[in-house]
């Protein structure tokens, strides 16, 4: 095991796959030698693998994804990077109408092994166009798999799985987890999609959340032990496929569920999870499922505003206390 940051682990995963499989290549804006990616995930890869395989592109989001699709269906394994998740709004057609649907529309004649990496989340005071969390759009798009690693070792294991998957995978990161450190196995490993991880066991209430909110939930869970509240914390790791089993089992044990993501509330992934759980574990629920999300506004710039917007420890703790 070696301690490394999420960023390092992610890069290590990409690098291993590039070494294994010469079909793997990266394309995106400023991912190459001059910058190494806006969040430096790909730094050094152009130097190691050359500018052909770590390919800087023009600012053409829709065509970046489309080009990845074209390369994927003709035998390569592209990883397209969209610099900020907000900008996938420009590539929705290629992601949602093309990548997600091609295999189906063409009756299984082809598959689309493309990975689209991007990053969500606020906390950096960069306002409405660079801070959103839009994973719900893609969860509502059949044909896409979605990985949402929150920890370094998962980032590495899941990116390797994503690259090997014959289907389009949206691989979403979060700005504030890149620097999180964790022990990462030295030997080669992958992490299967659709397996949630219980990050902390508990008896009184289940908390399900993603990325930085998951980390906050873990902090809160720790704190609340002092109040005698035993919180179980679940990390889905992938949204599609979704590990309902682990979640439902946990809820059936605790009878209570709090969902925490940084998305704006209405129509968030937390709505889907709530809908599923009330549908499939109705008789086990001892209290309404609580959703802790951002309010239904764009992301504001100024620190006090953004701090208010993003769910904090206090709000998570309150939601838990409300139902236990």
């Amino acid at each position, binding site marked *: 095991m070696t301690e490394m940051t999420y960023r390092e682990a992610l890069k290590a995963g990409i690098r291993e796959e590039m070494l294994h499989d010469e079909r793997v290549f990266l394309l995106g804006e400023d991912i190459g030698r001059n910058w190494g990616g806006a969040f430096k995930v790909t730094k050094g890869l152009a130097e190691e693998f050359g500018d052909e395989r770590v390919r800087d592109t023009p600012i*053409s989001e829709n065509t970046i994804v*489309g080009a990845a699709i074209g390369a994927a269906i003709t035998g390569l394994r592209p990883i397209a990077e969209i610099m900020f998740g907000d900008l996938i709004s420009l590539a929705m057609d290629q992601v949602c109408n093309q990548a997600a649907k091609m295999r189906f529309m063409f*009756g299984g004649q082809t598959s689309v092994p493309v990975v689209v990496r991007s990053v969500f989340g606020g906390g950096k005071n960069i306002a409405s166009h660079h801070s959103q969390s839009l994973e719900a759009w893609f969860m509502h798009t059949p044909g896409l798999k979605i990985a949402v690693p929150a920890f370094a070792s998962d980032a590495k294991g899941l990116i390797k799985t994503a690259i090997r998957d014959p289907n389009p995978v949206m691989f979403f990161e979060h700005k504030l987890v890149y620097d999180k450190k964790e022990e990462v196995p030295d030997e080669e490993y992958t992490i299967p999609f659709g397996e949630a991880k219980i990050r902390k066991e508990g008896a009184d209430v289940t908390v399900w959340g993603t990325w930085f909110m998951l980390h906050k939930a873990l902090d809160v869970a720790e704190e609340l032990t002092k109040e005698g509240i035993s919180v179980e914390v679940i990390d889905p790791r992938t949204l599609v496929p979704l590990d309902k089993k682990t979640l439902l089992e946990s809820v059936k044990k605790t009878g209570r569920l709090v969902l925490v993501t940084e998305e704006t509330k209405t129509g968030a992934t937390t709505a889907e999870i709530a809908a599923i759980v009330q549908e499939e574990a109705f008789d086990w629920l001892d209290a309404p499922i609580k959703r802790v999300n951002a309010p239904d506004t764009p992301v504001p710039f100024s620190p006090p505003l953004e701090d208010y917007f993003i769910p904090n420890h206090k709000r998570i703790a309150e939601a838990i206390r409300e139902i236990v």
Partner: protein
Amino acid sequence: MRLRSLNQEWKMWTMSAKKKTLVDLYTQTIKIRKFEEKVWELFGQNLVPGTLHLYLGQEAVAAGVTAALKKTDWIQSTHRGHGHVIGKGADMNSALAELLGKKTGSCKGKGGSMHITQFDVGVLGATGVVASGLPIAVGAALSAKMRGTDEVVVCFFGDGASNNGTFGESLNMAAIWNLPVIWVIENNLYAMGTPIQLTCPSQNIADRGAGYCTPSVVVDGNNALEVYEASVEAVKRAREGKGPSLIECKTYRMRGHSRFDQAKYRPKEEAEHWLNKDAVEIIKKIAIEQGALTEKEAENIAKNLQKDVDKAAEFAIKSELPEPEDALDDVFAEVA
């Protein structure tokens, strides 16, 4: 309309056009015609669900372009794609079956007319989102290059499509990466009911190529030989690593845009002018003039193709519809 006159060189070229090429071009053109006439007939019999964008009238474009390609080359098709896939060598049985929504269709009935695709003969896909094929063609061409092959990618699209954002993005990316892609604009003068004059400030869409350092030419899209010649040159450039080219083919739909459109918005004289320039007649005349075909041989080819098409229709009609639950398959490929 001002066509960049290739006539001078073109005439000289035709003198030496290989007879086989002319026969091929005629055959391809009339094959697509026969196919589309059959589709129209089946549609009239209420056998084709949904909508339909016929290729009738534009046959020379697909015929001329695909005749310049190898089997290993790729094409990216559109909502008006029947001609492209037939030109590229698609199996007519499964093509017609697809249009009828049958299990034996190339897409198992999941795609239909707008997504008619046969991957194994080099069709990357047919897309219903106008202009969404261009980025995919860029990627396929990038892949052809990165994989070290001599594969060439043709991307078909309409005049309307050239106003969508992907046009500039894709022309640019293909140019900077010097990719083996050929942009084929089928300028049939209309996007649905909207005449090109309303949406394009210049005489030729091809003018936009220069801004992306992409050699661009305008040809008579109803003349398969002219299309072929431009394609051969473009393919040569692509295979030699000289990068993308653009071919604007001026052409015209024989019928309306889709389903029940009568195309009443088209001025009578304009329609007459173009409908007189019949793609099949033009290439047939050339082939006969050049001594590549006799009238009789041409007729025989047509007859044989008619038989093939009839048989394909029979196959398609006899084929079974998919089971309802098949709707759930083919979303994801299985993980190895």
